[in-house]
């Protein structure tokens, strides 16, 4: 087991299999597509510019560099929290205002936030592999790869 300590952005605990990308995520482009809004409503990334195209991120620990694009990101992250199809947690190299807001909104308004840790160093990103089981404690900033 390897442990890393990052910076708490949004508290709470979460665990799940890692989904890892080196591309920034545009949550609006990813989730405002038919596959996400019609019955079934999977949290499936449908951004054709993205290497996670077609991946369902529900229950995962999503590992990515940063969040880009529209200020509708919060609508998407709030909604997937509200519907209980959000990632279990997120680890990001640089937490921007939109990502943090999205993770916070569900917590404040519905008591269902997405724990979010910012971690800068290469060591974690070099060793984490897709499918690794990860636990995070958003309050202390601890990331454990089991």
């Amino acid at each position, binding site marked *: 087991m390897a442990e890393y300590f990052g910076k708490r952005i949004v508290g709470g605990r979460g665990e799940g299999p890692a989904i890892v990308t080196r591309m920034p995520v545009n949550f609006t482009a990813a989730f*405002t*597509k038919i596959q996400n809004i019609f019955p079934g409503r999977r949290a499936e990334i449908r951004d054709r510019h993205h290497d996670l195209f077609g991946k369902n991120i529900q229950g995962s620990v999503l590992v990515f560099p940063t969040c880009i694009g529209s*200020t509708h990101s919060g*609508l998407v992250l709030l909604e997937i929290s509200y519907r209980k199809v959000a990632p279990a947690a997120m680890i990001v190299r640089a937490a921007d*205002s939109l990502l943090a807001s999205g993770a916070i909104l569900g917590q404040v*308004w519905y008591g269902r936030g997405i724990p979010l840790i910012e971690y800068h160093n290469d060591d974690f990103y070099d060793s984490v592999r897709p499918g690794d089981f990860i636990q995070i404690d958003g309050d202390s900033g601890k990331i454990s790869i089991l």
Partner: protein
Amino acid sequence: MKLEQEHENVLRGEDGEAMALAMKTLVAYGEAFGAKRLVPIKSAHLTGSFGISPFSAYYQILGRLADEGAKFKVPTTLNPRPGRDLNIINRLIFGRQKRLESCYSALGITPNYSCVCYFNANVPALGDRIAWAESSAVQYANSALGARTNRNSILIDVCGAVTGLTPEFGYLLDENRRGRVLVRIKIDRMDPPALGYIIGKTVVDRVPVIEHYPFSREELKNMGGAMAASGGVALFHVEGVTPEAPDMKTVFDGSPKETITITQADLDAMRSKNTEKIRHVIFGCPQMTADEAAALAERFAGKKTALPVWFCMIPDEMKQFEQTGLFRKAREAGVQVYDHCPLASLPVRKKSHTVLTNSGKLYYYLENTEYGATDDCLRACGVL
């Protein structure tokens, strides 16, 4: 974070439960970024103008605030309407629109219905602290006007508007407004949205400083819209053009640590090579001004478009444009002129319905869409 007594009172529920949560949201948002206080804002701009039926949480929250009698404390503008009832699916998707607009009206919205609020409806001054959403508007306000706002999410924008406050961090502070990456341009035929798209993709969220080029306000708008879609750029500078970049020395606080060069070949690589499959041409994302529409209408005057073509305009500017002879000529050429958002009305369409646009932003967000320089779009319409 240190709060004023009056803010503590709101947090304790003096103005209602939803207002308390709005304040709590701003506190949590500020604490995530180490903000030390909430500061008053001059205005807000909201992005949540589409009543999207399959989403519910945002609309519930807005309804709670409206039902509680909350009011926007600062002038607050709103993004475009989602569009015409083009097909049954769109009508179903935007089923919440009426209720949404009545909520905003109760809260005290300025009904400009445009992402381009910053030319007329809501114009901040140099140094004003504001709390806007809408990535393209945030970028224009920060970059071209020198106002100060973070890229605020949907709902964070509403919390700012009802409290008149925003947490002080990020682009509100001098130290985060300096240039980070110098962008050299080796370009013969300027194409601002393509340039913006490439810059956004390359610098992601750092502050780029573009070498001097005499961009018009519309070109800054279109370049910025693209930059904020392909990247997360909240602020850019143009040497000698934007207010915080009188010269390179000032904007970089010394000399740049990183330089990128964008060439004509980079811009040309963005342009569609499959124009024979285009079924629809769209101009106006961000929405067009009357001047932009007039310049394009001249190119259509006396001709007939071979493909359906839309001009999407700022509603107030469309009213002006409708009074002109060029509007009539554009209509005679087959141009459809709308005041809605092209992005909202087109996601659901036939697979064969490929769109060509000169908008870097629309190109990023809309599936099955190709990018073309303005002349490519005119050529596809058969008017060039």
